[in-house]
């Protein structure tokens, strides 16, 4: 009985395989080939974006009636572990979301399909470049985020501080933080965890430093300007205008900001949704561009849609990925207010989604946006950053010493990548 079942299974499997291989061919002589129905899988991690993504898939089906798309959501925490295992076994989704820190790992290991056709003029240049590897385009920019200075209007007004403007400098934000700090009420001026994208990458670039050399081979953490960018944060902690590392570890700064215990916060455009839906911050906060150091800078990061190199339906998957980068797909996403679409000109819809905030600030920063720093195995030195800079933030190691040790260890990791 079992054997008969197995035999039947083998026959069925062979039949499916035959059908698949004929489908990806030109299908010239076979009349059944043109009617072949294909279901693509689309992997992503944000369940809030599923409705928008399904709308995009429906729009795609209008022009490609034989291609259905099934959206597969995996929570971010397990997304990469699962994707890595799936890619190893040849079972990754046909099209899936990619982020900067993981991109080169996947591109350099041949997991992604190269040479996607995109019109690079319609996306921010930093995003197009982020998804190039060895001169080839592996990703279609999907959306992006920049960092802004969120501030609590009530706390600043009570302390008699003028609201931040695009012209603010480090000196302005420091003195505002000092004035806003009120130990009796447990209110701090400005504070941030040792998190790169939201905090110290921005100040490193503003101070004229760098995280990784353009060729991706050398760490920038022993550069004096880079160390200045780190000191911005540790100085705030030492002055007591920022919560201590222990306090921020117990209660994260975003939560302090939302409960009115933190006057200002460097945070991403993605938090507009969260802040707008919290009764405490829905009306009482606003956002301005980041204050300038030696120069103006903000880190820009964005997701891309990529195609699995070993997909069974390469043509259809490529077409869908390219469609995801179209203006039509961007318009659908913009209207939800969750992310800023990468397609230039569609971003105004996002700005208007929360009119109580000056979200235009995030777009005004684009001219001086710096790409999120990455290398082939970004995760390896991201761990070092977190470990060593946490020591600097908590004061158990002087910041310049932590930075130099970080540079040494990061260079060792980067050397491993070259092998």
């Amino acid at each position, binding site marked *: 009985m079992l*054997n*008969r079942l197995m*035999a039947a299974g083998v026959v069925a499997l062979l039949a499916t395989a035959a059908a698949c291989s004929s489908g990806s061919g030109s299908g010239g002589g076979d009349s059944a080939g043109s009617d072949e129905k294909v279901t693509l899988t689309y992997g992503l991690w944000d369940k809030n974006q599923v409705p928008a993504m399904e709308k995009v898939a429906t729009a795609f089906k209008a022009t490609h009636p034989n291609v259905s798309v099934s959206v597969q959501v995996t929570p971010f925490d397990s997304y990469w572990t699962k994707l*890595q295992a799936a890619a190893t076994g040849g079972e990754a989704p046909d099209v899936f979301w990619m982020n900067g820190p993981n991109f080169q790992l996947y591109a350099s290991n041949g997991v992604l399909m190269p040479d996607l056709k995109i019109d690079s003029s319609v996306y921010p240049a930093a995003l197009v470049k982020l998804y190039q590897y060895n001169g080839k385009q592996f990703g279609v920019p999907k959306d992006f985020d920049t960092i802004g200075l969120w501030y609590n209007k009530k706390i600043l007004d009570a302390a008699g501080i003028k609201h931040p403007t695009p012209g603010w400098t480090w000196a302005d934000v420091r003195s505002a933080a000092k004035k806003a700090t009120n130990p009796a009420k447990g209110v701090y001026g400005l504070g941030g965890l*040792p998190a790169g994208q939201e905090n110290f990458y921005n100040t490193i670039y503003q101070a004229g430093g760098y995280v990784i050399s353009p060729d991706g081979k050398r760490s920038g953490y022993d550069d004096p300007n880079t160390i200045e960018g780190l000191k911005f944060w540790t100085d705030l902690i030492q002055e007591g205008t920022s919560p201590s*590392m*222990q*306090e921020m570890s*117990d209660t994260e700064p975003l939560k302090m900001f939302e409960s009115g215990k933190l006057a200002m916060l460097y945070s991403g455009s993605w938090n507009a949704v969260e802040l707008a839906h919290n009764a405490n911050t829905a009306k009482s906060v606003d956002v301005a561009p980041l204050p300038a150091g030696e120069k103006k800078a903000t880190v820009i990061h964005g997701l891309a849609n990529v195609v699995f190199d070993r997909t069974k339906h390469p043509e259809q998957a490529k077409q869908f990925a390219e469609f995801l980068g179209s203006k039509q797909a961007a318009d659908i996403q913009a209207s939800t207010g969750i992310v800023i679409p990468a397609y230039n000109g569609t971003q105004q819809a996002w700005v208007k989604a929360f009119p109580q905030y000056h979200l235009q600030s995030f777009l005004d920063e684009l001219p001086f946006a710096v790409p999120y720093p990455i290398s082939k*195995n970004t995760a390896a030195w991201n761990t070092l950053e977190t470990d060593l800079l946490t020591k600097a933030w908590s004061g158990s190691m002087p910041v310049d010493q932590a930075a130099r040790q970080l540079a040494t260890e990061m260079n060792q990791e980067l050397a491993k990548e070259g092998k």
Partner: protein
Amino acid sequence: MADTVPRTSPVRRAGHRVPSAPARPARRRRTSAQNPLWALVFIGPTALGLAVFYIWPALQTLYYSFTTWGAFGGHTWSGLDNYTELAHDPEVATAFVNTFWYAVLGLLGIPIALTLAAALNGPGRRGVSTYRTLMFLPVVTMPAAVAIIWRWLYNGDYGLINYLLSIVGIQGTHWISNPRTALACVAAVGIWSTIGYNMVILMAGLKAISPHYYEAAAMDGAGPVRQFFSITIPLLSPSLFFVTVLSVIGSLQTFDLVYVMIGRTNPALPQTRTVVYLFYQKAFIENDRGYAAALAFVLLLVIIAVTGLQFRLQRRWVHYE
């Protein structure tokens, strides 16, 4: 083609069995009882599960510990490289020291469990099953949920513990972010969540001690304390040994509590990071699977050594009736 396979094979199988069955009719009863094949049939399912899900992966881990991994499955033989690097990695040494402390602190839970078990086991106690259920609840609660609740309790600024301390005029610290207190606080949660389990095992052990011993001791003039140390402890020692071995093995594998309670940017992470946490970090965050395999294997050896040592030492203090 597809037809021939299923039709022939059952016939062939039966054909083998038919002549062999009547070959030894006289000795059938003895052989069926003593035939080692029967033993294999009974332990087979368990042995198979053990082999497939534990032994084989352990052997694979041993093999992988001599390799260097690419991110997507390829691996190359690198000999003892991982072990050499491991021996010189200060993070590994710290993780082993931290893990050792979890194990030592975890043992403190046993006297507590024993006290509770003895208290509940006394004559004429009421509501024993209610208390036993309450004490056992943490054992059946998800570790992640336990860790999150305790994380809130321990919060330095808004936590319940510091609020209660402030009422009596004590300024509490940031319990799980202060490098000096974090390890003990995490270990305390570990103890709290295993006390119920140990207690139930020990209560069963207490029930097995015959009351005659106590009656005889009382007649000889032994008080409750003397009875406890001269009768209860020795006769309970097999149960105590059992919970000690399990507690140490459990502590050496501590991961979930640290993972949930201690965030990536917690300044106390270096002081609380366990070996399994480091394994997770190397394997799944830094994509260094070969190194992680070596780390897991060293931990396995340590657990075997510690458990072996406990079994040797049991001759000195464990009494089997």
